[in-house]
């Protein structure tokens, strides 16, 4: 069973439907104790970092996620859920994340040319780094996935498994042991996205 962490932000319906489509049983939960019983955990998220980090902290879900991840349970953060895995974010101030992957979350405006539109929204190709990922074992180099973001994971080069080019190379996916993050939305990325979710769901525990 996969636990989808519900801390009051984002569209969990699509994620649940995607997992159902690949035959992976999943349960949406806001109970920190339920994470212990799950085989794998997905941390979704859309919205602002500060608000999401506060909700995770106040609900006790943040501590529970960290505890499970540190015990070796596979964890996948998606979009804002991925950004929350890093040490801190500079989205409207400076805010602490879960610290499960070393690095910071910074505005893409700092690295892309000014004429490009923000957010980076739409389909973009994945370029794998030299660090190969089990998440992408059913994927080919250059397949497109769907992005919507204005911030990106920086200062984390050794952990990056894929980049997307948008005026600069932006972190598309990163991992640290059993902790995985995708800046894009696999649940919105058609067939390629379903194969990425399969890559996660079929990880050997």
């Amino acid at each position, binding site marked *: 069973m996969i636990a989808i962490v519900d801390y009051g932000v984002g569209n969990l319906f699509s994620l649940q439907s995607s997992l159902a489509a690949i035959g992976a049983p999943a349960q949406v939960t806001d109970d920190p104790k339920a994470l212990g019983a799950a085989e794998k955990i997905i941390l979704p998220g859309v919205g602002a970092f500060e608000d999401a980090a506060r909700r995770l902290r106040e609900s006790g879900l943040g501590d529970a996620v960290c505890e499970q991840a540190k015990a070796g349970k596979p964890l996948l953060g998606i979009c804002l859920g991925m950004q929350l895995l890093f040490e801190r974010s500079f989205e409207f101030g400076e805010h602490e994340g879960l610290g499960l992957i070393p690095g910071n979350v910074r505005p893409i405006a700092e690295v892309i040319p000014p004429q490009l539109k923000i957010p980076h929204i*739409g*389909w973009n190709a994945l370029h794998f780094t030299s660090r190969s990922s089990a998440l992408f074992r059913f994927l080919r180099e250059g397949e497109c996935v769907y992005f919507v973001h204005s911030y990106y994971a920086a200062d984390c080069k050794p952990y990056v498994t894929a980049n997307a080019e948008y005026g600069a190379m932006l972190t598309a996916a990163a991992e640290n042991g059993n902790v995985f993050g995708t800046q894009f939305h696999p649940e919105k990325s058609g067939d390629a996205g379903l194969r990425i979710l399969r890559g996660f769901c079929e990880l050997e525990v």
Partner: protein
Amino acid sequence: MRNGRVVKGVNFEGLADVSSPVELGKYYSECGADELVFYDITASAEGRALFTDILREVARQIFIPLTVGGGINSLEDFDRVLKCGADKVSVNSGALRDPSLISAAARRYGSQCVVLSVDAKRVDGRFTVFAKGGRENTGRDLIEWVRYGVENGAGELVINSIDTDGVKKGFDLEMQDAVCAAVKVPVIASGGAGCAADFVELFEKLPAVDAGLAASIFHFGEVRIAELKEKLRRSGINVR
């Protein structure tokens, strides 16, 4: 959509029944469409809420971004369709009636969630905004309206040209160009696509346009999405 079926008209009139939205949505998701826009087109004119049960079923079966519009008049409407699986919500008549809906929705759900859809046509040589599925002339200038929308938090625009809708002789390049020059958010051009070459022309002549939307040529199978993408690729246009 009207009465739970997918429909298509010409210049927004004379709607013909096409198919079940769930079947059609699934078909498009599987054959390479990049995004699905789901409008309940007579919701505003008939003054009722959108079909949330059908929407939920569509959302369950498609794994590409889903934009939903039609009869969105309040934050409660946003909330309702987002809970049914929409990723973005498109406002049109509701925003014309109460422009503060744009900023209120952007503050609550983020700009990436708020799509301003505009139906426009030439009236005395001016691009003029129409409400209620093209039935009501608002007298508003298109360019002033999209500028207002973007300044107040609309993260994306869908520009439907009533003049070229369903005519199938190409997109309204002049109208799309005028909008792209005025704003810096993604613009989705809609209305007028009759063949694959119309998409090539759109993206070649107006590189600032981010996407092209079409309905009838896909619904009736006149243009297959995979073939369209191949043609765009061969013309040097970056596609998925």
